[in-house]
């Protein structure tokens, strides 16, 4: 066997070593290890032309000006880490600039430098001379090694992108799922408990919508950095989506009590970090957070269920502002399931024609029907009639309230038109429809209302909108603007449930409303309740002062009516007169 065959064989093995691994670190380490063994080296070092981070290689350049130590095998020499050895780096840079291929230093150690074309420098450290012919075997292999490094770096970047959120550089949902699955398997084997904390930012959406996404993105980046600051070694933080983050605490103790305590400590650190102000440019913003958590392993609980449980607990924390960090319990899921089913049925109710409108008349002291309030009725399949007090709040949590509101308005206008065309008595003033505060504040509500009204071709004065006092004060300026527009058209406006909110004379004066409706709680047994009588008197006086019609609602007894007449009320609504009934019944009463 001649030397040429030996060199070719050596090249072949080195070339094979390059193909063994799929990432840059492993590719380089494997190649270096084979060099170490085959050349019987004392050490081998690589310096690579790194980009901005150690993640990527710079674009190939003619001069290797950004060389950084990448890896040494062995890691140490005489107890010191090679990565901190400046002398070696100086020699490498000298080689890169002068192409001086060989150095001999103390202790009979020989250093040989080889260029990794356009990528870096490979250094052999040997206690003996490496024959020149053997050294000549390297350049062809190093050209391939260079390509492999570039390819692996690209793969590593792609791998990084596939596993990290581009904005915050935190792990993404994909990586979280993968790591959580591994940890879950481990926790099922050992006696340790892990925890998953679902973190949702409060007030972030408003900032994002009102101030802009640029600021929102800056805040999310800061949140990511702050979360990393509180992260313990071995734990993981991921951006789950939008303004949702997940903290995976891989091990928080052996008992549930210990785990709860540790999770609370983590949550406390997170909240402490996240609630500090975010200064972006010249402005500062405050963003809080709600945290729900779940411990694992739990019987038959997989990754998706764990995250969902923590998410459910987070919503509980968001709902109950006194508990910013809430642990998941099965009751939460049951409630959520019920709510989900309810919402599903509510949504289906519109298309299934399960809604209906009943009208409850308002009468004057002569018994004439002067108005009729449209009341929504839902007969839920398999459950029967459902109270609006039950489903309206749920509808208001989603966009369903808009669909329902649209349906109600269309139906009221249609019914009003039918009656109007049939001919209604002169004392009948209007059909009243309840408008939720959320709907009133919705962009485009006024425009939509006017469009429907015009489409129905009825006089605006035949319509009255009733708004509860509480919902009015949530965005009073917007409400004033909307009501003003409608009032100018001739639409009546009433404040419903008057007396139960936080009425301010200032805004009552500003609101262009035409009537108020005394809440039923003050009407109930008013004949025997001096306090309710006092309140009723005050509301009546207020109406007189502001020129508002005052209607009392919820009258069920003759004594109540007599008392109210005695106090000076002249419009009434309640079961004592009429129960809510379908449009056909109202038609009969009016025609």
């Amino acid at each position, binding site marked *: 066997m001649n030397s040429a065959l030996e060199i070719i064989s050596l090249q072949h093995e080195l070339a094979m070593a390059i193909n063994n691994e799929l990432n840059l670190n492993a590719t380089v380490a494997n190649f*270096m*290890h084979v060099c*170490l063994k*085959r*050349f019987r080296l004392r050490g081998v070092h690589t310096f690579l032309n790194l980009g901005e981070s150690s993640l990527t290689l710079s674009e190939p350049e003619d001069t290797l000006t950004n060389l950084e130590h990448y890896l040494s*095998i062995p*890691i140490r020499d005489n*107890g010191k880490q090679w990565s901190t050895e400046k002398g070696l780096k100086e020699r490498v840079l000298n080689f890169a600039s002068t192409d001086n291929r060989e150095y001999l230093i103390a202790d009979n150690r020989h250093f040989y430098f080889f260029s990794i074309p356009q990528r870096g420098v490979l250094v052999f450290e040997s206690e003996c001379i490496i024959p020149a012919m053997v050294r000549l075997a390297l350049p062809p292999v190093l050209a391939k090694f260079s390509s492999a490094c570039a390819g692996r770096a690209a793969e590593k970047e792609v791998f990084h992108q596939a596993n990290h959120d581009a904005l915050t550089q935190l792990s993404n949902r994909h990586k979280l799922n993968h790591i959580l699955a591994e940890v879950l398997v481990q926790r099922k084997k050992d006696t340790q408990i892990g925890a998953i904390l679902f973190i949702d930012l409060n007030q972030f959406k408003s900032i994002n919508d009102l101030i802009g996404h640029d600021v929102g993105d800056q805040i999310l980046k800061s949140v990511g950095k702050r979360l990393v600051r509180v992260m313990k070694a071995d734990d993981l933080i991921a951006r789950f989506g939008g303004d949702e983050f997940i903290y995976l605490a891989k091990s928080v103790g052996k008992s549930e009590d210990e785990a709860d305590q540790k999770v609370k400590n983590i949550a406390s650190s997170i909240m402490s970090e996240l609630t500090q102000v975010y200064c972006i440019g010249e402005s500062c913003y405050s963003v809080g957070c709600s945290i729900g958590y779940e411990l694992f392993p739990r019987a038959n609980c997989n990754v998706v269920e764990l995250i969902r449980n923590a998410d459910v607990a987070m919503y509980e924390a968001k709902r109950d502002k006194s508990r910013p960090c809430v642990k998941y319990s099965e009751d939460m899921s049951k409630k959520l399931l019920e709510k989900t089913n309810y919402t599903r049925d509510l949504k289906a109710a519109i298309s299934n024609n399960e809604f209906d409108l009943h009208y409850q008349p308002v009468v004057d002291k002569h018994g004439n029907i002067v108005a009729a309030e449209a009341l929504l009725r839902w007969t839920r399949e398999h459950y029967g009639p459902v109270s609006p007090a039950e489903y309206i709040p749920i509808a208001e949590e989603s966009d369903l309230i808009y669909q329902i509101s649209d349906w109600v308005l269309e139906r009221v206008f249609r019914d009003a038109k039918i009656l109007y065309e049939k001919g209604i008595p002169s004392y009948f003033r209007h059909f009243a429809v309840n408008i939720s505060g959320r709907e009133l504040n919705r962009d485009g509500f006024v425009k939509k209302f006017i469009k429907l009204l015009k489409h129905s071709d009825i006089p605006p004065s035949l319509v009255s909108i009733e708004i509860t006092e509480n919902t009015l004060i949530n965005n009073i300026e917007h409400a004033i603007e909307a009501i003003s527009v409608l009032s100018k058209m001739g639409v009546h406006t009433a404040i419903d449930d008057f007396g139960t909110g936080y009425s301010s004379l200032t805004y009552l004066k500003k609101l262009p409303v035409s009537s108020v409706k005394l809440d039923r709680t003050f009407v109930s047994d008013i004949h025997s309740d001096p306090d309710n009588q006092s309140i009723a008197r005050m509301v009546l006086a207020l109406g007189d002062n502001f020129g508002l019609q005052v209607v009392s609602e919820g009258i069920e007894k003759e004594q109540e009516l007599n008392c109210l007449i005695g106090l000076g009320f002249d419009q009434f609504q309640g079961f004592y007169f009429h129960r809510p009934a379908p449009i056909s019944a109202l038609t009969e009463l009016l025609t």
Partner: protein
Amino acid sequence: MTINFKPFVYIDEDISSESLERGLARVKSAGSLSALILCATDKAENCNNYDAVLRGSKIPVFGGVFPQLLYDGKRLKESLLVLGLPTKIDYITFKNISKSSRYNAATTESNAFSAIQNNKNFFLIVDGLSPANEAFIDETYQHLGSGNNYIGGGAGYTNFVQQPCIITNEGLLADTALVAASPWDLNLSTCHGWEILSGPYLATDTENGRIKTINYQPALHAYKQAIPQSTDIPSTVDDVFTTSTSYPFGVQGINDEIIVRDALSIEGDDIICAGEILPNSKIYILHGSKEKIVADVRCSLGKKNESENLALIFHCISRDVFLGDGTEQELKLIKSELPNCLLLGVFSIGEIVTGESGAINWLNKSVSIARLAVN
């Protein structure tokens, strides 16, 4: 000698757990702060009850079960040797080494070695029959680094069945390696004395210790052709080991250093060696004369230091098989060359020592010696 080792040494042909307990009590009462335990037996069941004693030890204990022991220049079969040490020895145990991932740790600083990484002298005792022992010593070198002194050997049983053989405070363990930090400088020497008979050949297809082809021919066929015609041609597992005893492989590196590799067995036409042979390695068939091999030991010992009082010897069991009576001659030679040293050691299944290149080598058929000045 600057220290009287007698109170610190316990030797008994009784290798029971009771004897081990006595030995530990003896060296502990002499003031030992740790103990090296070397046991010789060919049956793992003789050590069945060691675990409780080892786990109950209040001082660090480390060592192994080997085919035979050496003490004061003499061979000891079926014996127990406990050497008390006047210093607490830090050591790290690595379990299930054949299941650990190779090279992965190379890219980062490993915490696994952090407890001893500031030392410069190390003893390594590995399960000699673990398929991963070379990978393990590679990893040890990668982390503890160059410029250090390493010596050690492979423990195990001569039936070549992998069984618990590494002695630790956690008990007797299999597929395990331990790295102990020596507080004393190790003056190392190693030699094998074997010479090239024929070659070079190219190990064209290998996988760890398995040679599949030599010069693109089936390995066994090529080996049969390469050894002298008068030798019995190996055809069974025992035969190849016997033949290899006289005609082992030699693997030549770039620096012409030759590392001996014993052939342990055959599987089909593959030859299984006691140590890794890299693909495309330049290999030779070696031979040796007993006189030359023994004489080489003298040369390898090099410069002697008067303060050295202990010599720890790892003598390959297959070298002993080849030398036969020559082993006693070799031990006498070592004793005469190191008159101030207490000689103790083992017949090992593979030796570990810092090589000429500075890296750690896994050797066969060698004798490796560390001389220490214990005080």
